[in-house]
């Protein structure tokens, strides 16, 4: 389609204006407000015990959820693409559940199953392993919502690469493990990396599911997203300022992930 120079420019302008209004301006306002009382004041606000605890809890949850979902995701992708057994269609469908179910429902379901009055709640409490309203429950909620990203990145690449290289490795004497580490993993490494970045972004930013299963106690079960939410509900300028500074920390973390994504993104398709 031929578009005149003028039309092209105005289309671009519309797109940019839209992005500016929806993304850049709100973010800029948050950043601006966070620094409106100067750096020192910003620093004080983000180093309160509650903020530091929220930061570390967020990082810890991501540090647990991301590796677990990476291993699980690569395994699932292999089972889906290379597996021969029945139930692959079912697995394929189940893997999309976290995409289609609202995180709030995920949180509610976890409460119903693992909560005090839930199916396993009694047993868990008696064995001193309460999950709900504890960081452990928040990890499970994050695991659930960030589960499909690695699988969905890796599976198509596995299909594209095919299994001939793996067969060649087998005829050359390599065991399944040797083939995985030396042949399969190197050929999907960019997809895995991209999947990890997406999983991390989701884990850092998750709010809905985590908020349902957290007791939301500052200093122990409050992540950055929960902290932002709580402070923004507080009355007065002080609360809003705290929300802005915490949101800025979270946004900077997410932007770092975004930069990683742009770095990895283009090399995905290139193969090795």
């Amino acid at each position, binding site marked *: 389609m031929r578009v005149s120079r003028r039309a092209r420019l105005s289309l671009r302008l519309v797109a940019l204006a839209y992005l500016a209004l929806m993304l850049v301006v709100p973010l800029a306002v948050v950043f601006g407000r966070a620094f409106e009382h100067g750096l020192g004041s910003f620093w004080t606000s983000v180093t309160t015990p509650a903020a530091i605890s929220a930061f570390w809890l967020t990082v810890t949850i991501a540090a647990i959820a991301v590796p677990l979902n990476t291993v699980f995701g690569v395994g699932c992708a292999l089972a889906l693409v290379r597996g021969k057994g029945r139930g692959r269609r079912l697995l394929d469908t189940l893997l999309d559940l976290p995409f289609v179910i609202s995180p709030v429902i995920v949180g509610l379901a976890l409460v119903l199953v693992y909560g005090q009055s839930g199916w396993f709640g009694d047993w868990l409490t008696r064995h001193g392993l309460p999950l709900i309203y504890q960081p452990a429950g928040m990890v499970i909620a994050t695991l659930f919502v960030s589960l499909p990203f690695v699988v969905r990145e890796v599976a198509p690449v596995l299909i594209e690469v095919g299994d001939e*290289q793996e*067969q*060649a490795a*087998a*005829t*050359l*004497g390599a065991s399944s493990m040797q083939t995985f580490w030396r*042949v399969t993993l*190197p050929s999907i490494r960019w997809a895995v990396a991209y999947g990890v970045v997406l999983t991390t972004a989701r884990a850092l930013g998750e709010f809905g599911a985590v908020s349902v299963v957290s007791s939301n106690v500052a200093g122990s079960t409050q992540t950055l997203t929960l902290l932002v939410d709580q402070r923004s509900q507080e009355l007065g300028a002080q609360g809003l300022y705290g929300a802005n500074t915490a949101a800025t920390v979270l946004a900077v973390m997410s932007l770092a992930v975004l930069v990683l994504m742009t770095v990895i993104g283009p090399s995905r398709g290139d193969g090795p």
Partner: protein
Amino acid sequence: MRIEATGVSKRFRDFIALDDVTLEVPEGSLTALLGPSGSGKSTLLRIIAGLERPDTGAVSLDGVDVTHSRPQDRGIGFVFQHYAAFAHMTVRDNVAFGLKIRKRPRAEVQSRVDELLELVGLTKWGSQRPHQLSGGQRQRMALARALAVQPSVLVLDEPFGALDANVRAELRTWLRRLHDEQGVTTVLVTHDQEEAMEVADRIAVMQAGRIEQVGSPREVYDNPANAFVMGFLGPVARLGGELVRPHDVTVSLVPTDDATEAMVSRVVHLGFEVRVELSLADGSEARAQLTRAQIEELEVVRGDIVYVRAPSQVAVASTPLT
């Protein structure tokens, strides 16, 4: 190493890939599995290498049953049609792969890889990635990789199928020479009868999951077991209810007892050879392949009446060509 496949059957859902196939590949031979696509030749090769399991039947190497052993334990080098090069490794690392898996000393790996790169003419390309090589070079690399671990059997699945005609011809000659020098028992899958005739010393002709005939290239060409083998190995003409090779048809201007009357419908000059297309009295068509000298002597042109016959010893009873 001698390979025996006994009573091997394999089906994929409703498709019968192999139907009770028995084949022996003698030690040191270069055997071609020749047949059209879907004839089961690749499946048989993959069963021999252990990449596929037969539903029934057995495979043995030098008399040892390997039907249920893994490909890793069979010592069979496999060359794939589309090279199956390890894309993320250099050419050197590709060739060294099997040796590194076997944890051979570094110095030994180095010298063996050098030797093989020299053998396949890729010495200068050692530090390149496979995608920087041409198709022919990639397949030579794949051959070096398979040979590195000194397999007792080398199997090749349509190895030259994805290459240009001239590269293909060059690699065929090269493979035959390599086989003569190294003497590794080799099985080659191909659908190209010329390739099979040129490279192999034994040909197993396959069709619809069965082996139709096994023999030397001359045997299967000169004494085909049936119409399919005859038709697959070269051009055929039908003459008086019999199938003959066009170059075995004799054309003469005078009638003889055993000759059939025919009218010349077209004379096609193909360089050294001349193809004479004929209409027979019964309305059927036939063709004869003559040399230029013969045609100059006969001086036939379109519309002439000639008498054609074929030596009966090469004819095959005319079962319908499938």
